[in-house]
């Protein structure tokens, strides 16, 4: 390879081994066509890595080998007559329809591309695979092998590793369906080892990938904080005409309020999704997932946010504030009692659950009319629920491999997991105090925000997002 050309990596292998899946995950491109039927890829396709408008490296998806043993046979016979056996083979067979696929896949190899050989490690090694590995060995190009196991079978891994040792400088396990950010970076790191000439370029790529990821986390934290701010401070007020039915109007306004909150949340999630370059994934989240439960549903409130005991403790801390919010006009005399009972009553009320989400006030208007106001939120549990939902959403989106297309798989797991809890329940008192401060500031009636509280929450969230990105197994709820 010439030093001033862009390093290329051809992803090659037997048909239906998951080459396109690997590439789709590596390049975070879910538009790559993938199917269970072999022969999906018929032409080479380039996937450039562009940093600041400059192409740094290029991955090339190739069709699978169609005649490995015949190709090897020909290459071996060409060895005596030429050094460039791959070029000679292509020249000889380019117009032969039988070898069209093989000629196509060998094209990037004739141009000196590095080779990433993908195999499905859940099946045994066959003679066609050995022929393919031998062909790649004969190219003399830097190469690594990837074990992309399509199912959980591990019986054949050792067989594969043994074969790899004969033909490849480097090999590693990379499951295109489960690989997350960390594993992608690790794969790129191992690519450095196949040719020292490419180390510097790949370092640039890896650094750019890391920076890009950190930037995504930063932006996601900002999106979540803004969404919380908007939801918590949101209120609507309407004039009540004389003789109007207060209860009915309140019910309508509550419905409108909930709708708006849902909208704000969904908009924020959508932004996170596009940040992680997902175009297909998301629509088909498992139906039983807690994320698909309504924001205001009983089970959401049961499984997310703080646990019942944690809620009582949290409400105890800010009980007075909540109690003030409970207006006698709205909730009647029985709720008015809580105002008198102070902190203890606040805690008991919090334990009641989602019923007292936002305060509803009927305010006297100067000209004899009345105004009804719904919002802002008075229950801190709501903040935790929104946070949990956003973090779960983030973990789904950021960890879902782009090469994975079984969007409705793992449903059983989801159902099982939906009984679990979110992230907030595991936070320490320091984290909860950051949330409390933010909640207090965001729900202040003057609508102003405290930049310090906001910054603190954002920093805390960045930490959380990074933790999720690097976790080995992220529970998909």
């Amino acid at each position, binding site marked *: 390879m010439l030093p001033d050309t862009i390093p290329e990596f051809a992803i090659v292998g037997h048909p239906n081994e998951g080459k396109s899946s690997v590439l789709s995950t590596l390049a975070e491109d879910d538009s790559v066509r993938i*199917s269970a039927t072999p022969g*999906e890829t018929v032409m080479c396709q380039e996937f450039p890595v562009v940093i600041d408008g400059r192409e740094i490296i290029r991955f090339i998806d190739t069709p699978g080998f169609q*005649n490995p043993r015949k190709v090897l046979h020909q290459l071996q016979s060409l060895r005596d007559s030429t050094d460039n056996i791959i070029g000679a083979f292509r020249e000889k067979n380019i117009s032969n329809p039988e070898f069209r696929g093989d000629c196509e896949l060998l094209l990037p190899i004739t141009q000196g591309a590095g080779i990433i050989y993908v195999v499905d490690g859940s099946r045994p090694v066959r003679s066609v695979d050995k022929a393919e590995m031998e062909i790649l060995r004969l190219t003399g190009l830097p190469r690594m092998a990837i074990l992309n196991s399509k199912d959980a079978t591990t019986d054949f891994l050792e067989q594969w590793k043994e074969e790899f040792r004969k033909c490849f400088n480097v090999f590693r396990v990379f499951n295109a369906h489960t690989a997350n950010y960390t594993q992608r970076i690790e794969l790129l790191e191992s690519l450095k080892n196949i040719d020292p000439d490419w180390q510097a370029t790949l370092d640039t790529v890896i650094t750019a990938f890391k920076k890009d990821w950190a930037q995504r986390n930063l932006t996601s934290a900002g999106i979540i904080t803004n969404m919380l701010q908007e939801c918590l401070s949101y209120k609507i007020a309407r004039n009540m005409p004389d003789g109007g039915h207060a209860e009915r109007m309140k019910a309508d306004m509550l419905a409108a309020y909930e709708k708006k909150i849902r909208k704000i949340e969904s908009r924020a999630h959508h932004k996170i999704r596009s940040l992680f370059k997902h175009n297909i994934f998301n629509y088909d989240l498992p139906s039983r997932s807690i994320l698909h439960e309504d924001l205001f549903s009983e089970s959401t409130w049961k499984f997310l946010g703080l646990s019942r005991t944690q809620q009582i403790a949290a409400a105890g801390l800010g009980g007075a504030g909540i109690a003030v919010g409970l207006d006698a006009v709205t909730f009647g005399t029985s709720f008015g009692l809580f105002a008198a009972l102070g902190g203890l009553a606040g805690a008991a009320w919090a334990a009641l659950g989602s019923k007292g989400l936002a305060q509803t006030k009927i305010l006297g208007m100067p000209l004899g009319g009345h105004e009804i106001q719904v919002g802002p939120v008075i229950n801190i549990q709501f903040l935790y629920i929104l946070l949990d939902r956003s973090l779960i959403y983030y973990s789904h989106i950021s960890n879902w491999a782009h090469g994975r297309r079984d969007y409705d798989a793992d449903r059983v797991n989801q159902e099982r997991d939906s009984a679990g809890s979110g992230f907030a329940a595991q936070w320490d008192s320091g984290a909860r105090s950051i949330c409390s401060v933010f909640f207090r500031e965001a729900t202040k009636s003057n609508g102003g925000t405290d930049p310090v509280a906001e910054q603190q929450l954002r920093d805390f969230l960045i930490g959380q997002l990074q933790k999720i990105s690097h976790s080995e197994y992220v529970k998909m709820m």
Partner: protein
Amino acid sequence: MKKWRIRDIIDLEYFFYRDAVSQPAEDQQYLNERDRKIFLNSVRPGMQEGERQDRPFMIRAWLDRRREEESTQEAVLPGESFQGLYSSFRILFVIAGLVLGGGSGLSFLAYTGDRPLNVFVYLSVFVFFQVLLLLLLLVLFLYRMKKRSFWSSSPLYRVIGRAMLKMLLSAKDRVSEKLGAEQRSRAESILGIIVNKGHTYGVLCFLPVFILTQLFAIGFNLGLLATTLFKVVTADIAFGWQSTLQLNPAAVYSLVQKLALPWSWLVAGDLAYPSLAQIEGSRIILKEGIYHLSTPALASWWPFLCFSVLFYGLLPRLFLFAGAAASQRRHLAGLDFRQGVYEQLLLRMTTPLVSTRGRKVEDAGPSVKETELNYGTIGQKAAVDRSGSRNLLVMVPDDIFAACSQEQIGSAVQLRFGSAIAGIVRINEDSDTDAGILANLKDSSPPAETDILLIQEAWQPPILEYINFIKDLRKAIGPGPCIRIGLIGKPLPDTIFSPVKDINRKIWTQKINAIGDPCIYTVGLVNNAS
């Protein structure tokens, strides 16, 4: 046994198609059970003890049973629709011929009285052109007879076939990038099935259309004859002849005489063809006008013209119609149903259902017990029935050759097909040995009643190398024996004979169908149910 009709074939194909597309998940087990049940309940009772029934009988019984089941669902089967449509088409084609023949006759015979109608024009338009078409047909027929094959050797078919193939290939190249692998594979498979059916039914695919053409031609000639006679009776029409070439009336006379040979022995005198004097009398010379022409001479041509249409137009078409109808009957009666799909159907019907699933003792009521016992005994009988079935030359790829013993292969083959093994060949060692194996097979044609069973791991994608080997194998062994692709799943610790995943079976079946050879087909070597 009832006679086979085209509508039966259509229904049969329809049922096969339905079986192929429906029940994708547990299809094999479902089909096994249904067809075995049909065999036990509907086919066996019609058989004598110890009698070996032929394929057409069993397949016909199966078809009748499937039709009965279907008729309860108030659905119109495609065979019936075809029959209805085809009957209407036959009438329509005759009527269309009558109208067109009559219409063109009328427009030609519009006589204004200022100039006689030119018999040469009548003859060339209505007689010589038809004779030309018949000659073309004859040439094609003789060519086909010489090549002894309808589909592959008909030059017309080849020209059309090549043009279509060229179009398809260029279209394929253009759309293949847009089509997914699944759609591409399905399209190739359908194309293969079309070619396959062409091989299976040969001339039967073509005869219904041929018969319709003959009916149209019969109608045309009848219409033409009727209008000619009608005009002759109801109008005073003068026929004459003219030519810029200085044709001698004697030469015209001799030509007419020769043309009238088929009927001149039948009708005597001037009725068969005009005499020399009449020919001279009906010659039109434009500068002399028509007044000098003699009336009897001008009226002498019409019997000759009618006989020409009758003998060169109508009668040959009647013969062709009768011949085609007879040929259709003969081909339908001669169907032997040796191809893959029928082989698989017969296998399903004659293979006993084996169940080894555990059950609680109290669940097994007496009726259930009886049924199972019944299955067992009939199963044994069935196995005996099939003892005369074809032997198998088993081909085992090098990759799995060492992992299975001869006994294992033998028992798997016996269990699945009830066939004896004619030999085991190790393939795919390298291209030279494969070439040697194929050359051997070519030189020593396999013994009669021997099919080939090629064991194939279905989880391996059907790459070109494998498919081309199968095609080469077909070339080597010739068109006789069937090639069964015995699919197996991923190897288990103790055996390579494991069940095949549905998706892999589907992929291989589509790929094998695309070859378009009715006698190459996939079969799961291990029954998923057992």
